[in-house]
C-alpha cells in the first residue's frame, strides 16, 4: 500500500507541477470527524494503514457514543477512486459497534476532505485552496459591521459586506463580494465590484433606489416584495429580485460552503 501511494504521489506532483519537499511534510491526522447537519462527516486519509484507521474511528465514535446512535455517517476518502472495501469495513464496524443509522461514501467532486492521496510529501496549502472549497480549511473574507449607516457615509470593502443595522438613504455600500443587510436597505449598493456577476445582495427590508451587481445595473426595484426578505442576483444579464424564504437559493448546496 505504501509503495502504491508513493507512486501515485510522484505522478500527481508532476501533474500539478509541485516540487516535492520532504522537509515540510505536514503531519496530519488520519481520521477527522465533523458534525454536519444531523450526521457526521468522517474524513479519512486512505494512505494510512487500515488497522490504524479502524482504531481511530473506534476511538472517535467511542467518545460520542450516544450521539452516534441512528446518525447518518458520511465517509470521505478524498478525490480518490476505490477504497470501497475500506468504507464497507468501516460501515460494518460502525453499525455493529455503535448502532449508527446509515453509512455512505461521499461522492462530491469538491470533496471536503483535507486529504489528497498525493499530498503527503508536498506543500499542500496550494492544493487545499484549489481543490477544497469546504469551510474546514478556508476562510471567508467579510467585513461585518453593526450600527446605522447614515447619509453621506461610504463603506467600501474588497470582500463580503454584512451590516447588522439599517442603511439610510444617501449612504453608499460597495463590496467585492456579496452584501447582506440585516435591517432596512434604503441606499444604492454595488455588490461584486467591479465585475463579479455571481455576487448577490440580500436584505431583510429591501428598498434601495437601485443596485448594481458586477456589471449589471438595476434601476427599477420590484416593489411587490416589500415586507419580505429579498435576495437579488444576476440572471441573463438582468438583476432579478426574489423572495428569499420562498426561493431558498442556498437550499441546494449539499455542504456548508465558504461564501
Amino acid at each position: 500500500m505504501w509503495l502504491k501511494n508513493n507512486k501515485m504521489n510522484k505522478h500527481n506532483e508532476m501533474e500539478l507541477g509541485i516540487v516535492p519537499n520532504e522537509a515540510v511534510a505536514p503531519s496530519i491526522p488520519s481520521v477527522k470527524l465533523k458534525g454536519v447537519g444531523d450526521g457526521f462527516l468522517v474524513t479519512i486519509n486512505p494512505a494510512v494503514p487500515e488497522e490504524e484507521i479502524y482504531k481511530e474511528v473506534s476511538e472517535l465514535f467511542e467518545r460520542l457514543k450516544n450521539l452516534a446512535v441512528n446518525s447518518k455517517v458520511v465517509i470521505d476518502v478524498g478525490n480518490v477512486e476505490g477504497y470501497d472495501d475500506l468504507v464497507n469495513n468501516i460501515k460494518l464496524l460502525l453499525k455493529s459497534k455503535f448502532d449508527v443509522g446509515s453509512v455512505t461514501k461521499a461522492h462530491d467532486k469538491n470533496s471536503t476532505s483535507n486529504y489528497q492521496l498525493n499530498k503527503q510529501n508536498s506543500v499542500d496549502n496550494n492544493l487545499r485552496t484549489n481543490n477544497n472549497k469546504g469551510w474546514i480549511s478556508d476562510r471567508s473574507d467579510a467585513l461585518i459591521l453593526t450600527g446605522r449607516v447614515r447619509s453621506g457615509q461610504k463603506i467600501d470593502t474588497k470582500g463580503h459586506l454584512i451590516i447588522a443595522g439599517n442603511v439610510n438613504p444617501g449612504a453608499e455600500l460597495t463590496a467585492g463580494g456579496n452584501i447582506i443587510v440585516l435591517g432596512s436597505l434604503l441606499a444604492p449598493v454595488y455588490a461584486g465590484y467591479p465585475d463579479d456577476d455571481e455576487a448577490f445582495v440580500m436584505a431583510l427590508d429591501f428598498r434601495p433606489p437601485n443596485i448594481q451587481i458586477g456589471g449589471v445595473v438595476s434601476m427599477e426595484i420590484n416593489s411587490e416584495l416589500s415586507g419580505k426578505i429579498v435576495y437579488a442576483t444576476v440572471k441573463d444579464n438582468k438583476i432579478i429580485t426574489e423572495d428569499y424564504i420562498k426561493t431558498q437559493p442556498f437550499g441546494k448546496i449539499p455542504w456548508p460552503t465558504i461564501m
Partner: protein
Amino acid sequence: MEGKIIVVTSGKGGVGKTTATASIGAALALEGNRVAVIDMDIGLRNLDIVLGLENRIVFNIVDVVNKRCNLSQALIRDRRIENLFLVPASQSDNKDVLTALGVQRLAKQLKSEFNYVIMDSPAGIEKGFENSVVAADEAIVVCTPDVSSIKDADRVIGLLYARSITPRLIVNRIIPEMVVRGDMLSHEDVMDILSIDLLGLVPMDDQVVVSTNTGVPLVMQNQSLAGQAFRRIAKRINGETDLPIQIPTVKTGIWSKITQKLGLTK
C-alpha cells in the same frame, strides 16, 4: 458661570433653523435663563429680523472675532424679554472670514457669561457649519417631514457623531391632517430613519410668517401652536426631561369646528 453651547443645525436650508433658534432662545430666557443667540450665517443674516432687532445692529460677530470691538459692544439686548441677547452676523462678509480658533475663543467668553448660548448654523456642511459646531456642547437637528430634509439631517447627524456631539431632533412643520391622510411622513417614520433622541414636534403654523415679519418672537404669542411647542422644547432643554412629547393632532371636536367657523380659533 459655565453655560452650555447648543448649535441648531439641519443641513438643508429653509427647514426652520432660525425660527427654532429665536423661539428656543426666547423661551429659555422667559424661563429665567441668561441666553445669547448667535447668528452664524455670515453673509445671509436673518436672526436679527426674526427677533425684531435689525435696527439696533452696530457691531457683529465678525467684528468680535477679529477684535474690532468687545463682545459687550456687539451683544444686542432684547427690550421685551429680559436676559435675551443677540450677536448678529455680518451681512457683508462671507463664511471664510471666521476661523475655528476665533469662534472657540468667543464661545469660551460667551460660556462664562450666559447659561445658554444658542448658535444658528447656516445651511450646508461646509465652513459655516464647521465653525458653528466647533465649540458646541450639544446639538439640535431640525428637520421637516420630507425625504430631502431627512436625508440632509441624516448626513449632519453623522457629522455631529463624528465630532462626539450627540444630537437631538426637532421635527418641524408637521401638518397633522396630511399625516392622517398619509400624504406626509409621520414623526415615527422620521425617527425610524434618524433614530436619535426626540426633543419635540412642532406643528405647521401660519403665525411663524407673521412672527418673522413683525419681529415678535413666536413664543410670546400665546395663540401660536408652534410657539407652545417651542416653549415645551425649551423646558426640556432646561432640565424638564420628563415633559411628555406632544404629538400634533387634527382637531375634530364639534366645539373646535364651531369656534373655527366663528373665527375665534385657528
